[in-house]
């Protein structure tokens, strides 16, 4: 299975870094339906991996398995040296190291923007409130909406909400960020403001797995593109390889439909 030798497609410089996420033969069933069929991939520290593919191909399921929002039935998932098992301590450790941004934002509507961002630092990292608020303000500054701190999520636009969601994840100072179609629920003019934040994040050296249909973003920011279909990883490669000379027929078909 040459397609799953993911490291071969990585640049030499990246290949030398340590492994951040290792998935080996991950299987996932919903009843009789197999959503993931032996997914194996290795994500390096500081790498930006973009996952694309037709809907229903298992992209979201895979990254939701990485922080245990879905439970995989077979295979191994290791995040930063910690294996994801039924051990609650491991699950908590991994979840506090892995941030996630959702398609539907999932902000807490009953809390102000500031409280949304400080919730996890205060209750998981046990930070003093003063310190957590200073951190939250700095993060809101970083995503470009410091003036919205005292508003409620319902008072913000979609793009602003998604940027708050990114700040909320960053407040845990995660080592990995997972993005599950972060721009799919946004109006076109708001997509850019969210992608800009993600681009800045990628340049700062964050390890990121991004499920997205934004091919422009993938071409520009990704270190590697992982193409999935039918619960399998079909092709892995650098953006040049993926967009210019894909080897698999299914990849070519997909690209011909969306480009």
């Amino acid at each position, binding site marked *: 299975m040459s397609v799953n030798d993911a490291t071969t497609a990585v640049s030499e410089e990246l290949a030398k870094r340590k492994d951040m996420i290792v998935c080996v033969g991950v299987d996932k069933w919903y009843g009789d339906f197999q959503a993931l069929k032996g997914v194996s991939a290795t994500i390096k520290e500081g790498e930006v991996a973009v996952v694309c593919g037709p809907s229903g191909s298992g992209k979201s399921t895979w990254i939701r398995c990485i922080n245990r929002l879905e439970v995989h039935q077979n295979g191994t998932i290791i995040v930063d040296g910690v294996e994801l098992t039924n051990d609650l301590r491991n699950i908590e450790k991994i*979840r506090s190291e892995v941030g*996630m941004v959702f398609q539907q934002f999932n902000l807490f509507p*009953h809390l102000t923007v500031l409280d949304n961002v400080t919730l996890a630092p205060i209750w998981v990292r046990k930070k003093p409130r003063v310190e957590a608020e200073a951190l939250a303000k700095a993060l809101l500054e970083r995503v470009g909406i410091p003036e919205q701190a005292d508003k409620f999520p319902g008072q913000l636009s979609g793009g602003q909400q998604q940027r708050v969601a990114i700040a909320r994840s960053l407040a845990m100072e995660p080592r990995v960020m997972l993005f599950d179609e972060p721009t799919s629920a946004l109006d076109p003019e708001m997509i850019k403001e969210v992608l800009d934040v993600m681009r800045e994040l990628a340049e700062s050296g964050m390890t990121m797995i991004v499920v997205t249909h934004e091919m422009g973003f993938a071409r520009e920011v990704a270190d590697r593109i992982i193409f999935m279909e039918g619960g399998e990883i079909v092709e892995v490669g650098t953006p040049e390889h993926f967009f210019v000379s894909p080897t698999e027929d299914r990849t070519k078909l997909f690209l011909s439909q969306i480009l």
Partner: protein
Amino acid sequence: MADTARSSLTQSRPPFYRDVTVVKWVVQIFVLAVVIGSMFFLASEAGDNLRASNVPTDYDFLSVNPGIDLSEGIDRDPDTGGRALWVGMVNTLRMALAGIALATFVGVIIGLCRLSNNWLLNKIGSAYVELIRNVPLLVQILLYGSVFANLPRVTQSVGPISGWLHLSNKGLSVPRFHIADGFYQWAIVVMVGLVLANYVRKKRVGIQDLTGDDTRPIRSALLVLLGVSAVGWFVHPVFGFLNTPLRQISEGISLIPQAAVQVALAVVALALAVRWVIKFLDARRSPAGLAKLTDDDYFRIIFALAGALIMVFVVLILWPGLSSWLLNAVSDFFTVLSEKFGNGRSGRPLDVALPDVIQVGKFPNYGPSGLNLSIGFAAVFFGVVFYTAAFIAEIVRGGVLAVPRGQSEAANALGLRRWTVLRRVILPQAARNMLPPLGNQYLNLAKNTSLAIAVGYSDIVQVGQTVYNQTGKTLPVVSIWMLFYLSCSLTISVVVNFFNVRTKIVER
């Protein structure tokens, strides 16, 4: 040509029967006249017919000895009809308040059981809900009543812990706490303790925010309150000196001339109305100037001013007695309060009385010194509690399920622990979903206590029925029932609405 067309458009007014403003006002005044007219008509017709058929509509029985004994309550042998009804009201309120508290507790537990992934808990919850809510409440009350009636008969030395706890077919009797002589002095100490405890809590929260240490603010505050109350138990007589100033206040108030109160009330009524109108106009004012007032706005302003003028008229001319009554009431209040701090009232704040069994005629029964919960009370109480709890369980389940799944996913993804997710993310949102239907269930519970008549518990309906059987004053008693239940229900609604507004989520 064009000019004339435009001017005819702007200047010509429609005939009055097509003018929206005119038509609206005419209709409003017409409807108001019809409503008031028909009410007058119905009232006078009813009055005539009642007089003609000799149905009594007076409330004299309220101050006449009804000659009835009540099975339980704050006064077993009331000396007026009003007192008897009051005892019934207290019994109903007691039942409703205790019932609401326990039904909420049981309901939340059962609701959480139904949400649980644990197969056994889940099925127990479902069985409870399906069984209880599909059997009529009256049947359940009769069932509990007949079960409790089979407890052992009461004797001089009965019960699991004779002298402290009695359980028999007369119900449950437990020690009762009394407010004793020193209570009011002690209450002042406790109030001081509350203020101190709140100060300590805020201080501790401040430290926690600054350093991140868990300073346990609630626990420290409770400890402070307990400490102050305990010390107060011994030193409270120092507040006995309040006797004199309170009496002086009372005497001072009784010296105020009635006319001054009348004028003051009139001025307050007018000032409130004027202030309301000014605020109302301010709210309609924008940087561009005063917005055009609609007919509705004018109506509200007129209504407010007319209300104030009516108030002034009532206070100054129609009912001068109101002012002197108010004056006397306030003065009496301070007199009574000063007596509470008077000489010799420096004993223990609270006293405890043990239950006793006395011989009533041929049969032994519980005496008045313990806190007695009768079989009737227990039957109605458990009936309404278990019945309402089944509905509350469904409300809890629905409220939690209505919180989108993304909320718990996002919270989990942040690494929050299960309890924190529940406490900080799910429950605050679920509570908002649950409050309005919960208020309905509380109203139902309060009204369902009237089924007490089935097992002879002396609630307001049972007492009222006894009173009108004795006196024949059916209509007045029914009107009192209606007023009582109406005010209970409105109170519950106001309280629930208050929390409803407070938990509202801000959007836009």
